[in-house]
Every structure is written in structure tokens, then in C-alpha cells.
């Protein structure tokens, strides 16, 4: 007790500095938002944390969120890297997903629109799909890194044309792949109780984290994003690094496309991953990353992605009426964005400052 008293002043100042460093930490904000969503669910959604095993699969609201966020998580990883390196956003993820899945579907189904048998080996088809994604990414990357075009503008080309290309690949049809093996990637591998999507997204997150941490890629990406000129002078090939992030983005979007089409057992190029790029940008921003490039936090982005999915799932679970759903989503997003804006933060800072200075003057 006496100890406490003696350290009162110290503990207060350490608390303040702790709070300050917490407030300046990029991760804090996204964690807080996620926590709010979770708490909200504890109140409004009975059985939110209930986990059961149904049909040999772990299921419940939370596994649902993890499952349904997986495509977004994978795309967000790519978006994080592209944003960090180029200081811009690539909006062609949805289109790339469609292209990659279409390649894969074409390989598996041949020209049939609905079949039980694979026309080529499963793994080969997946690889071709990823390659398709990589090609799309390389196209964007080339325009951005070599020709110095702004990423948003560049990716507008694939954003508008990508789905038409995908449609040409599938001859304008929705392809239904009835072989149960096709659903391994997007639903379940027989005997494994965890949804494959959750496994795939987790593995991808780990892979990208290791890739950026164990090699110097992460450092290089940040350098290039912060200051292109400085980076070039210290011997970094900034165009190569940017190009690389776009290719990675393509591959990741391709993977998301394969996962997404596998989870519904069909390739519908008009529908797959529609609008996912916008959610991914939002996730990156929510994660405390600067959309102007530079330092990035994969953990933040991932939390951002899960937060977005958690919000959607929550709204479904609350049975919000369909015509109000988007209004609610937009409102929540506006609140989050305003709360994370610099102007708002400085306002808060000034406010707390006022309170503190009042305290001081009263005390003194």
C-alpha cells in the first residue's frame, strides 16, 4: 500500500507514457475495433462463441468468420505489399481472381460446362491458375515499375477488362466442377476437421510473414515505398522490388480466386471476388498502414480483414434488414475512418492536453 503511494507519481507518468505509446502504435487501433465488434457480439448474438462439430467440421460463428474472411485475408496480404512498395493501390484483385479461377476451371473441365471428371491433373490446374494470376500481376507490375504509371490507373485496365478475359476463357459460361476433389481447397479435405480455407489463409499469412522477415524483402519494400531516390542510391533496384510485389499480388489474388471458386464448386467469372479489392484497401487502412506507402504491418492488415468480415457476419447474425445492411456497413466504416484520421487524432490530443493542463493548474 505504502509502495503504491510512494510510486503514485511515477506510475501515473509511466501510465501516461504507456498510453501515449499505445495510442501511437499502428496496431492498437485495429485491435480496438475488432474488440468492439467482438464485445458487441457477446451482447447481441447468443452462441457467438459456441463451437460445435457438424459433419466432421468444426463450425460456429467464429469458424465461419475465419472461413469467409480467408479470400479477403489473402488478397489483403498482397494489397499490403503493393501499397507499401508503390504507395498506390491495385484494384484488379477481383478480376485477377476470376481470370485465375477460369484458367483452372478450363483445365479441369475441358470444354464441358458441368462434369464429374477432371480433364487434367488437379495440382497442375491449380498451378496454371496461379500462373494466370502471376501473369496479370506482372502486367500491372510492368506498367507501374518500368513505365512509372500510377498503380490505381494501371490496374483499372484489368479491373475493366479482366472479367471479360475470364469470360472468354470459359466461353461465357459458368463452369460447374462436380468432382468432390475440387472442393478440397475451399471446403474440406476428407478427414480434416478444420476448413481448408482457414488452413490455406493461415499458411499464406505465415509464408508471407516469413518471406518479408527472413529475407530482406520487407526492409527493401519499406525503403522503396518511403523514398525511391534514397533507395536507389543505396543500391536497391526499386523497379524490380515494385515489380515483385505486383507479381506476388497477382499470385495471391489468383490463390484467392482458386479458394473462392472451390468453396462454391463453380467458376462464375462475373461474380467471383466482386468488390473484394475495396474491402482489401479498407483492411490495409484499418490495419494502420499508410496508404501512401512505406512502413507496413502485416498483422494490422490481417486484423483489419478479419474485422471487416466480423462486421458483415455480425450484421447477418443480427438479422439487419436487407435494405439497411449497406447503410449500416457504410456507417460503421465512416466512423472507423474518421476515428483513425489524423485530424481527429490531433483533436483528441488537444482535448486530452487541455484536460491535463487544467489538472496541472488546479494542482499547482
Amino acid at each position: 500500500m505504502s509502495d503504491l503511494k510512494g510510486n503514485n507519481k511515477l506510475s501515473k507518468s509511466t501510465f501516461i507514457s504507456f498510453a501515449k505509446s499505445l495510442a501511437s502504435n499502428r496496431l492498437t487501433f485495429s485491435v480496438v475495433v475488432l474488440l468492439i465488434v467482438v464485445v458487441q457480439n457477446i451482447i447481441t448474438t447468443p452462441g457467438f462463441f459456441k463451437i460445435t462439430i457438424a459433419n466432421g467440421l468444426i463450425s460456429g460463428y467464429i469458424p465461419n468468420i475465419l472461413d469467409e474472411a480467408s479470400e479477403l485475408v489473402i488478397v489483403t496480404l498482397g494489397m499490403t505489399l503493393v501499397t507499401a512498395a508503390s504507395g498506390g493501390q491495385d484494384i484488379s484483385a477481383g478480376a485477377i481472381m476470376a481470370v485465375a479461377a477460369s484458367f483452372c476451371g478450363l483445365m479441369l473441365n475441358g470444354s464441358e460446362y458441368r462434369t464429374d471428371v477432371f480433364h487434367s491433373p488437379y495440382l497442375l490446374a491449380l498451378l496454371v491458375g496461379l500462373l494466370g494470376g502471376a501473369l496479370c500481376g506482372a502486367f500491372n507490375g510492368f506498367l507501374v515499375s518500368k513505365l512509372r504509371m500510377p498503380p490505381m490507373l494501371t490496374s483499372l485496365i484489368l479491373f475493366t477488362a479482366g472479367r471479360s478475359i475470364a469470360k472468354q476463357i470459359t466461353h461465357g459460361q459458368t463452369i460447374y466442377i462436380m468432382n468432390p476433389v475440387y472442393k478440397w481447397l475451399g471446403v474440406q479435405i476428407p478427414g480434416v476437421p478444420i476448413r481448408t480455407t482457414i488452413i490455406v489463409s493461415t499458411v499464406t499469412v505465415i509464408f508471407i510473414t516469413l518471406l518479408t522477415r527472413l529475407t530482406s524483402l520487407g526492409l527493401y519494400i519499406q525503403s522503396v515505398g518511403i523514398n525511391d531516390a534514397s533507395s536507389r542510391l543505396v543500391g536497391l533496384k526499386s523497379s524490380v522490388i515494385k515489380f515483385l510485389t505486383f507479381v506476388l499480388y497477382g499470385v495471391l489474388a489468383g490463390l484467392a480466386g482458386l479458394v473462392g471458386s472451390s468453396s462454391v464448386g463453380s467458376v462464375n467469372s462475373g461474380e467471383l471476388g466482386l468488390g473484394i479489392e475495396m474491402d482489401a484497401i479498407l483492411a490495409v487502412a484499418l490495419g494502420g498502414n499508410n496508404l501512401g506507402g512505406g512502413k507496413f504491418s502485416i498483422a494490422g492488415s490481417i486484423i483489419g480483414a478479419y474485422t471487416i468480415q466480423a462486421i458483415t457476419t455480425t450484421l447477418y447474425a443480427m438479422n439487419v434488414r436487407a435494405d439497411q445492411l449497406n447503410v449500416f456497413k457504410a456507417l460503421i466504416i465512416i466512423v472507423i475512418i474518421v476515428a483513425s484520421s489524423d485530424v481527429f487524432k490531433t483533436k483528441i490530443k488537444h482535448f486530452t492536453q487541455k484536460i491535463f493542463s487544467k489538472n496541472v493548474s488546479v494542482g499547482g
Partner: protein
Amino acid sequence: MEKLKQEQNNSDCMGKQPGHNDEAGPSLKMIGIGKSFPGVRALNNVDFSLRCGEIHALMGENGAGKSTLIKVLTGVHPMDEGRVYLEGNPVLVRSPQDAQRYGISTVYQELNLCPNLTVAENLFLGREPLKRCLIDWKRMNDEAECLLKELNILAEPTAQLDSYSIAIQQMIAIARAVNTECKYLILDEPTSSLDADEVQRLFDLMRRLKKNKVGIIFITHFIEQVYEICDRITVLRNGELVGEYEIENLPRFELVKKMMGKEIEVLSDLSVHKDESSSESEVPVLEACNLSSGASKVAPFNLKIYKGEVVGFSGLLGSGRSELVRTIYGADKAVEGQQFIKGESVTIKRTLDAMKHGMAYLPEDRKAEGILSELSVRENIIIALQAKRGIFKRLSRKEMEKYADEYIKLLDIKTASKETPIKSLSGGNQQKVILARWLLTNPEFMILDEPTRGIDVGTKTEIQKLILKLAEEGKSVAFISSELDEMLRTCSRIVVMRDRQKVGELTDSDLNQETIMRTIAGGEQ
């Protein structure tokens, strides 16, 4: 009512003229200022005062807290403790815009202009002349033209800012600050990238403002400039106030002692060991034959640099001295000519090639080309070495920390920790970090473009010593500095540039102020 108030305000400063004259007492007063950043106490109980119509020097080593004091005053950072009074009234300055409203105009150490806007847009940013709610472009450009002419700045109002050198950008930043109706003008190291002529022009301007009763705070590391123009000096050391002095009462060596807290070695002790004058038979470390660059338009030049040699590059701003060394390093693409390293022909397509051949290049523009602002001191130090090693041979965290610690100690870099982002270091300490970055790559041939810019007197000597030590160890150095005596003290040969051409090489007995100036100016006497 409004108007009356304003007049009253004005008269506070001007009105007392007849009776009290300049000795009217301080017009700007800061008392008991304290400011902490995570891990550092940047300012501790500092008092400062500025009178109407005086030029007041703020002096101190790198990281002493000069810029922080300015930033606290102008509302960039909130202060932890202390009070600010303007004309006797306590004020709370919350933001630079606020400061502007109180009549405080500031040129910060790190220029914050917009490189991709035009000169005129930069001059009038935030207070563009309007015509029916739209920007009156014509008037804006005309006024900009007048302003530029008045200050003798050679810049087109409609040209993009980043098409000009930092010297001109610096002058534009100053023009922007004096253009607003100001009662107080703050200049944080405005002269670090100006040449002698431009400094004189700036001083003329400052004297004119002084006559108009503007109070000026002037921060610099050039002691001579302080004695040329200032009335009083305030000295800071490690965030503490050392004292406030009338200029007459503080001789130079006393000032330096007050800043450093110890006696400084006499600079003239340093001298080049010019005994082993490199023989012609020896193979040069670096040789350029007819090298010329495309974009920066440096005329073809020949150059040989030998082992253990410090070669200076001199010339006016814009003479092409920086561009020449950039071409050697591959930062500007060479369009013709050949390069040899230790006798072997090499092609340098990009900077990494140059680094692999043992070169290092410390660029002139620290903010635009040097620092990686958001990265930590540690990352900024190891980045060049890491780039040289390649993406897969990542330095372990331990190695990085070891190197960072080593160089922080070696160069006495003042930083809260090695994980502090470099942008929160003081200007001079940022420069030291960049120097550390290149020393770490253990280069054979180092190009240093203005390495002592923004560095305090004490450290300047340290860096000059370091350059000589490198040469002694058999490394070669190309050295550019706007301060001639600094080059004379270290270089064994000086290359003179004029109009993007190499016009001469001076050695031995020609190495003196007069000959160099003559060669720079035109040679024909």
C-alpha cells in the same frame, strides 16, 4: 472594434518607439520550456527572449534542442511545460497556422515545400490570391515574379519546384516566409546550402527586416555568420539553457566552449599529409575517360583518383560538381566514356554496380535522397550493406544491432535508441547516420557530397579527421564542400568545375584560397 484591437496590438511594438527605442524589453518571451520525446528530454526549463528589431542567434551542438525549441514555439509539437508570451500576453500556439496568425513566420530546417507544385504555388500555398472564389493565377504568378526579383532569386514562377537545386529551394522557402506580414521571423539553418553570394543576399534582407522592427531568430552552425549579423546569442546544450549573451561580450572561442562544454582542439592542427604524392606510375583506384552524363549534362571529363588520396571538387552551385560525382557513382547515367577501377574497365549501370566495386556515395540532399524517414536508425545504418549483400543474405538482428551500436558510438550519434525513426533525430545527427551507413559498407572509394552540412563545429572537425584517417588507411575520398577552408584542410588535390565542365586541377602550391577562387571565377584573372 476588431480594427481597434488590431491597431492596439501593432502599437505595442511600434508605438513605444519614441520613448524606449529597441530596449523596449522582450517582445517574445518563452519561460521554463520543457519538452520530452519518448526516451529523450529534448528541452528542460529553457528560457528565451526576443526583442523587436533584433537578430538573435540560437546556438548549440547537434541535438542540443534548437529546432525543438522552434517547433514548440510554432506549435508543431505541443510543449510539456512552460509559457509563451507575446508582447506581454500569454498565448497558446496550437499549430503552425496559429503561429502564422500571431505573426510568427518560420523556415524550418527540413524544408516542407511541395516539390511537385510550381514555384508560385509554393510561395502562395494556403493564401492564394482569389478572384471570385477562384485562384487568380495571373496575379499569383505576377506577384511571385516580383517577389523573386526583389530577392534576386533566379527562378521561374511557373516552373516546378523540384527542377531547382536545394539552394534555390531554400531561398524560395525564405521568400515564402518573409512574404507574409510577420513580426517574428525564424530561420532554422537557412544558410547551410547557400553559397557566399546568396548568404549575403539573405543578410541584406534580414537587415532590412530588422529595420522594420521584425525580430529574427537565426540558427546556424557557421560561427562567422553569427558574428557578422547577430545582436545576441542564446546557447543551448543537451536541452538545457547555457546562457544568453550580448554578442560583444562573447568572443568566438568562448562561444564554442559554451556550446561544447569543453575546449575545442585548434582546427589548424589538422593538415594533410601530402608527403606521399601519388606517382604517375601507380594504377589509379578510379579512372574516368571521357565520361559524360546525359540528363545532368556534364561535359566529358577525364579523372584519375589514386589510393589514399582526398580529392576535392570545387565550383559554384550548379557548376556540375555534384553531377560529376553522381556520374561516377552511376546515380546519373553515363552516356559515353569509360570507367576503370584499378585498371580494369567496368560498366556501371546502376548504383549497386558501383557499390560492388567498392564505392560509396553520400548525397547532397539529405532529406530527398538520404534518409529513409520512417525507418529506424538501425535500419538506416545497415540498409546499404544489406543491399550489397542481396535479398537472401539477410543480416541477423544481432549483427544489425551490433553494427548500429558500433557506429552510434563511433560517430557520437544522439538518439534515444537505435530503434528511433530517423526522422525524429536532429538534422545533424541524421547526417551522421547516413555517414555511418556508408562507412559500414567499408568502401575503397568514398564520395562525400557536403558531408558536414548541418553539422556542429565540434563534429565537423571530427569528420574532417575521419576523412584523413580513411585516406591514411589507403582509402580514397572525393570530397565536396561549400566551405573552401574545409577542403583546403583535407584535400591533396582540388578539381575545379565551371558551367558543367571540368576546368582545372590544382595541387600543391596552388592549393590556396586565392588560386581556387580565381579558377572558379574564370581563370583569365
